[in-house]
């Protein structure tokens, strides 16, 4: 078993870049981890495996499994990959432990910026920040004489020109798959239009001016997409870019490095990574800042928690970052912002808000993600769609006891 892991780890590291140096300590406690499956996690879990006795499960559907697996006693995984979205269920179920004592004991290499504090207690360790930002084909933009888009109006104007030029199959790509993907696109724009999703009494406030503007902006974008946009998630858009089928998309920073991967991409060096456009002139970028990191389960013996924490911290080392510099916008020493990180950094610097880790946000995202497509397909009007979102939110919130 150990040998397989070692082979898998070195191979994974080999795929992501030159092999990183071995782990700083020898782990003897059998550990299991569950996380998402994008490049940064492939790199970090490979680094964890080098410490020994670590078995990692990478699954883009981890979101579905994690709450139940951590609620089990004993928990099925000691270490979980989390982000500001996925930590919410774990926090509200109380299934992850505060890390203050472990940070004091083993966390000397961590910078204060990495410590995720909730109610004063450290609940997770961040490794990277991530955000969606604008990517576009600079060669096509230059050829048609289009400047970098600063607002969504600019984006749509650029898309119209590109569509008219016929240089690519579809001017734009977008992650409009129902559920999380389309939900986040809505939220990004909605916040960008100055909206607030919920009122102080936890009732929804989607159905207003910001909501209407958001839906109409999404509808305008959808005219430039591959008509199959409702099955399109990040990987789909990434491939559209790589195969030269689209010219503009608002996509995750973690996907940026793949654009310059010569083995996969036909557009190496042609994609510009810039800040997200504002929803309205003079506004902040219509995007939210995310962090990725890890948390430790509560329902496990302290000795396992200690080992898991040490493995997690050891994996976030300088060598791993250097070997996988392009895979994420790391918060770890050794990171030198490269081309792939430019967009995310610009977005963060221009003041995009962090994605809020709250229960109401989680419920709102679900209600929005399940209903937004109905407007794009023409099944409902904008007002009906927003009303349906609010109704879905209220049903859920009442069920949970959040709204009386």
């Amino acid at each position, binding site marked *: 078993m150990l040998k397989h892991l070692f082979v898998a780890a070195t191979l994974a590291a080999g795929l992501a870049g030159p092999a990183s140096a071995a782990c700083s300590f020898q782990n003897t406690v059998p550990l299991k981890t569950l996380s998402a499956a994008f490049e940064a996690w492939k790199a970090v879990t490979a680094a964890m495996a080098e410490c020994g006795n670590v078995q990692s499960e990478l699954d883009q559907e981890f979101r579905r499994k994690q709450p139940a697996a951590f609620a089990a006693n004993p928990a099925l995984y000691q270490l979980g990959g989390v982000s500001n979205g996925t930590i919410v269920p774990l926090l509200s179920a109380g299934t992850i432990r505060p890390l203050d004592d472990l940070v004091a004991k083993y966390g000397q290499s961590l910078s204060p910026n990495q410590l995720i504090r909730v109610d004063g207690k450290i609940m997770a360790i961040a490794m990277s*920040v991530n955000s969606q930002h604008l990517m576009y084909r600079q060669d096509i933009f230059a050829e048609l004489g289009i400047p970098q888009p600063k607002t969504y109006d600019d984006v749509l104007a650029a898309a119209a020109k590109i569509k008219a030029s016929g240089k690519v199959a579809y001017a734009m790509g977008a992650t409009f798959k129902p559920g999380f993907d389309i939900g986040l696109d809505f939220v990004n724009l909605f916040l960008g239009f100055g909206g607030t999703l919920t009122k102080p009494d936890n009732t929804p406030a989607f159905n207003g001016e910001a909501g209407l503007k958001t839906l109409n902006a999404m509808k305008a974008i959808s005219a430039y997409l591959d008509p199959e946009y409702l099955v399109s998630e990040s990987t789909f858009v990434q491939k559209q870019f790589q195969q030269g089928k689209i010219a503009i998309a608002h996509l995750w920073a973690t996907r940026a490095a793949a654009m310059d991967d010569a083995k996969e991409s036909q557009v190496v060096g042609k994609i510009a990574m810039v800040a997200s456009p504002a929803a309205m002139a003079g506004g902040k970028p219509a995007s939210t800042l995310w962090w990725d990191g890890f948390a430790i389960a509560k329902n496990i013996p302290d000795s396992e928690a200690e080992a898991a924490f040490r493995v997690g911290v050891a994996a976030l080392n300088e060598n791993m970052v250097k070997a996988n510099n392009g895979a994420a916008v790391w918060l770890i020493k050794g990171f030198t912002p490269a081309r792939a990180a430019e967009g995310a950094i610009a977005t963060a610097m221009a003041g995009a808000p962090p994605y809020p880790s709250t229960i109401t946000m989680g*419920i709102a995202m679900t209600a929005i993600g399940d209903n937004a497509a109905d407007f794009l397909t023409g099944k409902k009007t904008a007002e009906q769609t927003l009303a349906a979102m609010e109704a879905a939110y209220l049903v859920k919130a009442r069920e949970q006891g959040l709204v009386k």
Partner: protein
Amino acid sequence: MNGRTFGWFVAPSVVMMLVFIAFPLVFVFVQSFHATQSVFETVKVESCTPGFLGQVCKTEERTRPKLDAAGRPMTETSFIGLAAYRTVLQPDAVWAALAPGGGGWDAVMAVDFYRALRFTLTFTLVTLPAVIGLGLLIALAVNTMARSLRGPLIFVSLMPFIVTPVIGALSIRWLFMGDGILTAALRWMTGSHISMFAQGWTIEVLMLVYRVWHVAPFAFVVFYAALQTVSQDALEAALIDGASRFERLRYVVIPHLKPLIVFVALIHLMDAYRVFDEVVGFSSEAHRISLQFLTFNLLTPDQAGNRAVTRASASAMLTMVGVIVLLVPILLRTWREQRGRA
């Protein structure tokens, strides 16, 4: 066989079905009348998240579940009667839609449950005759082939049936999605670009075709087996009476196959009614959902980690009522048969 021996013979089977099917079912039934809510508190919380250069800390009012001494969220369970059923069925919305000027059919279809029910019933009732018809045609056709050809033909015909459903759906999807090979072929033939995954009806057609492709071989092999036992005497007698080829099929072969047609129809009704793999395999949830998918979706934790257990239980119970309605004619037939033997 006396009751005691009968009991011993069926006990293992019955125990398994009781523990793993009947018990969960009762549990689901009870659950559909009860709601479990968390106890929330609103507190001022300071939380810090990383920015690119420095940390961003914010103090704000947040609603969060109250944890008990053991660190588990406190919950309250209460009896809610038919409230969950009302949320699923939305009778008010239906009355409003059906009232004059209320939006009619489209407005009813805006409710997820009816949308799922419409698709599930269409799916079941359209594929049923298609599967039986195609299966019968293939069986009759293969039965006329030379004996040496039949083995390979049966093998190839069974391929769509034995292949793992998820993989079958994926392979069809690979052929059609984006610039898949068959989408390209369709464009070449029709001259216009048809995106199979861009609108509801094309996905629905694809799902129907996929299911027929997948199940027709089962009908085929059952019918083919039965064709081997058609009485040659009866066929020849019909021939002597001057029956045409079609009449022999109609009056000798089909009556012989009738119990098997009922059997295939029964199995297919049950399987098609709980259509699920197609919705996942073709990612059709934006356009078409089925009843089982609706339940599954409600049970999937949302972004806040909650499962809508009560509503899912109600929707599961309603789905079951539908199955039973579909099965009643066949149950009655079994009942008469059993009575006839007793």
